[in-house]
């Protein structure tokens, strides 16, 4: 776009990635652990046994420490849309702003208000009201996830809106289409269920450490029991929602799917690569093998992505260079039509300004022929529509591979907790201890697929990142990047130290 240099765009992206990834270190723990705290407290209220209260209180302490950093890193992200992505904010603020505001009204106040009850209300409110507060914090946290993920889902699959040439922005036409878009729903269910896995593995990890040290044995066993049931159910559900996510990707964002599968030449009954090493010299359109080494399972990708046999699934090359047989336009055509749309829109605005009604009408009619390609007009070349294949491929396969490990962890820990044999294997406890760190990797990898997989688009097919950025100059964005890097790293280090001290100190009375 005229005026915004590429360095500014890149730094704005680095900054968003930095803040989002830091934020996402804390949020999945919050989403999962909040429900686990609610489970522990519910058991306490039902059984009246003090040890469950102490168990709940212990996990709540860790929850609170984590929650604070989640809040600190979260506020930046809301305002970053304005500071670093101001063109984005104007172009889609009419649609994107609403879920953010709703998140504030219906979710953040629930969390903020009942958080104080959960932590300081033990002796001030009744048992029942306290339990309600804990549940509300859990539900409120996950409700806030719903709204922000609806907003994100809309960026992946913009729907329920129309472009208004007079205001030069997209405007909402159907709220329910935005809220219940298949992508938004897949995003919400997959993100929350995987966060429950992270929260559960956090509990298993800390508890395994206690068992390895021979401390708080009973609390650790009980915590593992609850967490592995929750984790196991969540993993199964995450598998279903993950499959659904891939299916909607194939439908709405085929380029993202092709990138994370390393899939170049479209075919029917496409094979899936279960394991592979990407050929780094591979470029779109050439005849090289995308993989140096790969293990393929025939027909599976086509079946999973299209939910049927014999269906064609487009690959990267089909999407970049077009496929006349399958009715796919080449990106080059989309780019030239997009440029035409931008020119016609500019002409329309100028004619309107000078009061030339006839010329304005004519430009508007021409604009409407190509308006759905407008976003492509900001791209330089057809290959720009391909996201980084290797990064997406490895991130996706890491995520999926680790999810199998988590399933195993939950099964063997559930078995151990039920049979009371957790102490019998140090290898198992060690696996439990490291599983949380693997979950962090899987969780971050998931967001890499979601966000890097969408590149070059800020909003799929509508607004590329280089047309969404604030024209501010790389210097300012670079400075704030390092400012946030330093402060967030300092807070992370402090958080980890406080957390480990609390864990070493352990729960009271159990």
């Amino acid at each position, binding site marked *: 776009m005229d005026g915004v240099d590429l360095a500014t765009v890149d730094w704005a992206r680095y900054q968003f990635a930095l803040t989002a990834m830091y934020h996402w270190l804390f949020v999945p723990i919050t989403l999962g652990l909040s429900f686990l705290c609610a489970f522990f407290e519910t058991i306490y209220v039902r059984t009246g046994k003090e040890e469950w209260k102490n168990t709940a209180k212990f996990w709540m302490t860790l929850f609170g420490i984590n929650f604070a950093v989640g809040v600190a890193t979260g*506020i930046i992200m809301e305002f970053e849309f304005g500071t670093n992505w*101001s063109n984005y904010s104007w172009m889609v603020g009419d649609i994107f702003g609403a879920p953010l505001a709703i998140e504030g*009204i219906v979710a*953040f106040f629930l969390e903020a208000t009942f958080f104080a009850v959960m932590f300081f209300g033990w002796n001030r409110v009744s048992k029942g009201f306290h339990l309600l507060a804990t549940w509300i914090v859990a539900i409120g946290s996950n409700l806030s996830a719903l709204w922000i993920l609806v907003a994100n889902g809309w960026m992946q699959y913009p729907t329920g809106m129309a472009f208004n040439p007079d205001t030069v922005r997209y405007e909402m036409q159907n709220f329910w289409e935005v809220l219940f878009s298949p992508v938004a729903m897949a995003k919400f269910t997959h993100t929350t269920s995987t966060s429950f896995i992270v929260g559960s593995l956090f509990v298993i990890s800390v508890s395994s450490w206690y068992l390895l040290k021979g401390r708080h044995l009973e609390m650790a066993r009980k915590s593992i029991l609850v967490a592995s049931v929750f984790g196991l159910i969540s993993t199964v559900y995450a598998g279903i929602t993950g499959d659904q996510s891939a299916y909607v990707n194939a439908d709405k964002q085929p380029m993202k799917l092709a990138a994370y599968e390393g899939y170049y030449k479209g075919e029917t009954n496409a094979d899936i690569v279960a394991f592979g090493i990407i050929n780094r010299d591979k470029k779109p359109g050439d005849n090289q093998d995308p993989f140096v080494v790969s293990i393929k399972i025939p027909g599976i990708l086509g079946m999973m992505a299209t939910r049927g046999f014999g269906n064609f699934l487009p690959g990267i090359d089909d999407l970049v260079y077009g496929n006349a047989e399958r009715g796919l336009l080449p990106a080059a055509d989309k780019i030239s039509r997009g440029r035409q749309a931008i020119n016609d829109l500019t002409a329309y605005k100028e004619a309107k300004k000078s009061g030339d009604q006839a010329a304005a009408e004519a430009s508007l009619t021409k604009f409407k022929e190509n308006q759905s390609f407008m976003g492509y007009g900001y791209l330089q070349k057809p290959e720009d529509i391909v996201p980084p294949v290797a990064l997406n491929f490895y991130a996706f396969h890491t995520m999926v591979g680790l999810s199998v490990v988590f399933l195993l962890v939950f099964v063997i820990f559930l078995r151990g907790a039920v049979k009371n044999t957790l102490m019998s294997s140090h290898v198992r406890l060690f696996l439990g201890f490291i599983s949380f760190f693997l979950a962090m990797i899987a969780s971050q990898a998931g967001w890499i697929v979601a966000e890097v997989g969408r590149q070059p688009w800020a909003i799929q097919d509508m607004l590329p990142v280089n047309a969404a950025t604030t024209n501010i100059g790389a210097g300012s964005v670079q400075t704030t990047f390092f400012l946030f890097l330093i402060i967030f790293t300092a807070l992370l280090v402090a958080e980890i130290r406080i957390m480990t001290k609390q864990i070493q100190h352990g729960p009271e009375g159990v």
Partner: protein
Amino acid sequence: MIGSLDTAILQQLWWILVSVVGSLFLFLTFVQGGQTLLWQVAKNDIEKNLVINSLGRKWELTFTTLVLFGGALFAAFPKFYSTSFGGAYWVWILILFTFVLQAVSYEFRKKPGNLFGAATYEAFLFINGAVGILLIGAAVGTFFTGSNFTLDAFNRVTWTNPLRGLEAAFNLFNLAMGLFLVFNARALGAMFLVNNINFSGVPQLEERIRKSCLQSLICALPFLVIILAYVLFWDGFGFDQNGVVSIESQKYFTSLMKTPLLFVQLLAGLALVILGVFLTSFKASKAGIWFGGLGTVFVGLTVFFLAGFNDTPFYPSKVDLQSSLTIYNASSSHFTLTAMTYVAMVIPLVLAYIAHVWYHMGKLSVADVQDGESY
């Protein structure tokens, strides 16, 4: 039902809603004010813990209200969001930065292994209370003094001052606005602490807090005079029925005169704040915060209404008058404003449960900060 309302009505309704949220935020800055009072009023660990824990049960409300203020502006007036946040970059970034520091400070301050020590987190709280509020005041000041931006045909913002928003803090009016808010927040902070803390066993703390309330008001007065002088005598920005923006002499004074209710609201607001201070500093009353809080909301509403109503652009551009933002050219579409209005109907419910919990959580006593569950 709401969908059949005129766009202009919805735009005005949303300016009122945004003003209410913004004014409630100003009331809730008693948390920030209290944070800056910490060193002045609390002389030992117990007193410090009382002040911190009293504020610590409320800080998230203030924080969330700020977030909602941003979210509501984004949803209802996205052109302000894109123009101001993208343009006045540094002033907003620094404000946010101070809130990032605040968000961890209550939780981390007393925890073992917190890396920087309690004093550092207390300093973070002071920075948030002083610098954060000062800059917010300066940013609100630009609603009246104008900013340095132009918008192109596609509504993309170009900021013409290299300080990127920080220049706002070097304008006398904006600075007065910022400092007034800082001292008003301190007065409110004192009123809140007097209300919320059970001072048995720490009578000196109560005495110091009550005294600081009056001091804060006295410090705020010169800045209030500057603000009022500007509003009454200086020129302002206005637009005609075609939306053409121009400088109008004594614009804000004229607006006040045209809408006597606004004038009464301003006077009532200031009187209530003074009454709150009086009750706190000269009487043994604990009720000051309710008067001071309501007064602050009234003053805040006057400020926002003056900025947005009576054919006034609420975010004027000094360098290109026609780029100025009005509530009519900066808003969301009719559809989005309608949808958001339906959502806004849950706000009374939100206020009700906040009030309920506030009531049930009661007062804070010395015993409460010694039970191991406190910050």
